[in-house]
């Protein structure tokens, strides 16, 4: 079956008003025949057809304005039967609108290092304002492009010597709004999810020694934190115990296709969010460190992508940094588990029958009893503990 579409009739034309047909169903047409009249910005123009065939169905209505490319009629190719045409019409997929979405390239202001000795970059207006306020423009920390000192920097420096800076109002209600969101999620979690809690002490002798050796070989920018080992161990354990990794919705559990770990990040002015690092089980520790660094930076700058916020399949909280020994968190609905790691500290442990002082951490699990039970939870924590004894395999 042949589709006759409104052709482009000129450089600046994207629409046209169809006036009348010069053919009727059943007519034979050949290349170059005039089949319709279309009104354009200049005048009515005869429109040709460039196919051979028999007119089958006239779709366009006279007087209707349509975009170039709109199907106006269908024709039977030479020798084609109406039945074949009908059959083909049913199997023809709906025209899929292909929209090429330009990937928005995040533009991050790169603060170039201030080369010592080079004249400080101070914008002319900042230089003038500094003179008025008696501030030494050269010594003000610059937040402008390439570390330049801007008017705002000078005024902030001047104000700093007087009163403590007030938190801008806009920031206040953003915090309140976040507080409300966290409160709603937590109370829903407590209402709907039957939590059970387990904890496990995990020796980190091997992990700590391996990390020190590994970091000694690496430059500062590639250094690995213990947090990365925790994330990878949880992700690998999820592969063995998939009932910890997924979402509970509309009364049934959907296991996660991959392990997207929500990382709990505290925001400086208060508030906590847990955006996801995707496919943690497939990523190297180096890659995880890069993802973690980038995620924290963007979380605190408030420029997270919506996909990262919405689809973690399990969450890990690492409050140990703040000196708490063990953490019993609240699961983020609709997830079904949350693993917490306390402070890495020197603990007395019995190792092969002897009492030894070694670095260790308390790993805790809060899980959804509708999906798994204590026995599965214990095996899951034991698997995390086993994995952390072989850091080189993570």
């Amino acid at each position, binding site marked *: 079956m042949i589709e006759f579409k409104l*052709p*482009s*009739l*000129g*450089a*600046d*034309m994207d629409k046209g008003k169809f006036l009348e047909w010069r053919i009727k169903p059943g007519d034979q047409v050949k*290349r*170059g025949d005039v089949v319709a009249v279309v009104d*354009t910005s*200049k*005048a*009515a*123009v005869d429109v*040709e057809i*460039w196919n051979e065939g028999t007119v089958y169905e006239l779709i366009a209505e006279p007087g209707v304005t349509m975009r*170039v*490319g709109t199907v106006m009629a269908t024709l039977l190719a030479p020798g084609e039967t109406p039945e074949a045409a009908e059959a083909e019409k049913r199997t023809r997929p709906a025209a899929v609108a292909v929209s090429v979405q330009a990937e928005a390239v995040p533009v991050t202001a790169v603060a170039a290092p201030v080369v010592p000795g080079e004249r400080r970059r101070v914008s002319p207006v900042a230089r003038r304002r500094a003179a008025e306020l008696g501030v030494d423009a050269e010594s003000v920390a610059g937040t402008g492009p390439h570390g330049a000192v801007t008017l705002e920097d000078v005024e902030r420096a001047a104000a700093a010597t007087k009163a403590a800076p007030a938190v801008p109002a806009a920031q206040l209600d953003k915090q309140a709004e976040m507080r409300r969101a966290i409160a709603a999620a937590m109370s829903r979690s407590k209402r709907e999810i039957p939590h059970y809690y387990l904890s496990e002490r995990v020796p980190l002798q091997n992990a700590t020694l391996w990390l020190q050796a590994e970091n000694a070989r690496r430059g500062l920018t590639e250094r690995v934190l213990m947090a990365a080992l925790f994330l990878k161990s949880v992700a690998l354990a999820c592969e063995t115990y998939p009932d910890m990794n997924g979402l509970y919705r509309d009364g049934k559990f959907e296991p996660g296709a991959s392990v997207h770990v929500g990382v709990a990040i505290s925001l400086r002015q208060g508030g906590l969010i847990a955006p996801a690092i995707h496919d943690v089980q497939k990523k190297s520790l180096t890659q995880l460190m890069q993802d973690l660094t980038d995620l924290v930076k963007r979380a605190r700058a408030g420029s997270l992508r919506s996909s990262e916020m919405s689809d973690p399949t399990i969450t890990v909280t690492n409050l140990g940094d703040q000196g708490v020994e063990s953490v019993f968190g609240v699961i983020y609905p609709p997830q079904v588990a949350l693993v917490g790691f306390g402070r890495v500290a020197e603990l007395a442990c019995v190792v092969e029958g002897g009492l030894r002082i070694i670095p260790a951490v308390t790993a805790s699990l809060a899980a959804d009893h509708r999906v798994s039970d204590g026995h599965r939870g214990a095996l899951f924590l034991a698997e995390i503990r086993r994995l952390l004894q072989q850091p080189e395999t993570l």
Partner: protein
Amino acid sequence: MIAPPPSGPVPFPREFALRLLADMVRIRRLEEKCAELYGEGKIRGFLHLYIGEEAVATGAMPAFAPEDNIVATYREHGQALLRGVSMGSIMAEMYGKQEGCSRGRGGSMHLFDAKTRFFGGNAIVGGGLPLAVGFALADHLRKNRRVTACFFGDGAVAEGAFHESMNLAALWKLPVLFCCENNLYAMGTALARYESQTDLCAKAAAFGVPTLKVDGMDVVAVHEATVRAGERVRSGKGPFFIEFQTYRFRAHSMFDAELYRDKREVEEWKTRGPIHTYSARLKSQGMLTEEQFLEIDRAANQEVDQAVAFAEGGTWEPVEDLLRDVHTPAVAAPAEGGASR
């Protein structure tokens, strides 16, 4: 009002006579495909088709030698094709692909080809005339026995460039063959409504330049006249002016409602169509059979389909090349454009 189509024996060897027919059919099928592709949005911008005027390019181009210079206008698909620019590179150019004869930068109105000394389409009416005079001036100074063929429409006759160029060529006896394709309309204005003197040969004669009026629908007459005028120009006797009286069967460009002429006039001129009258004449002289005509047409359509495939398979010029060729690399200017640190 229209003279009857030419008849009588065709004074060329059979093989050359059939080549003239084939070339006209090739142009016709190419231009029809361009109209179709324009409707599909594959060809954009401005597009001026040669349908109806095929006899002029087909008859004239074989009269020029490889070392001659050709300067044409924005309705130049026929001249470019018969000068030897491949149909594939012409089609790719109209697609804007870098395999086009101008790297996809010029489009339909700016076909260029150094190998065949085809110095372009030109979108400025009359823009090519001074250039042609310049080429002839260079050949004159270097004592090259060459002809510069300059094609232009009747509309260009009203431009200052026409008068200044005709005078320079006549004054300095330069080897320019001015080929005026008089298709009776300058865009939407009939000749009599924009020229006080509508006899274009009389206008050219005023510069002391020999002229010739030729039936531009008769490929035989076009060829004979162009050969004779070309030899005269090549011999150094100075410029020559030929007026080919022809007619375009379609709009000036792809967006013109043709309000300025009535349909009957178009139909009347179609009875003098250059292809069907010439093929009928060949048949009456026993130089062509219907099967041979169908074979010629089939070959032309195949060449067009291959050209479209070549263009479809073409590639887009990388954006990094935007500033390439603004200058000649040998003396490339320092990085230009934008705030160059």
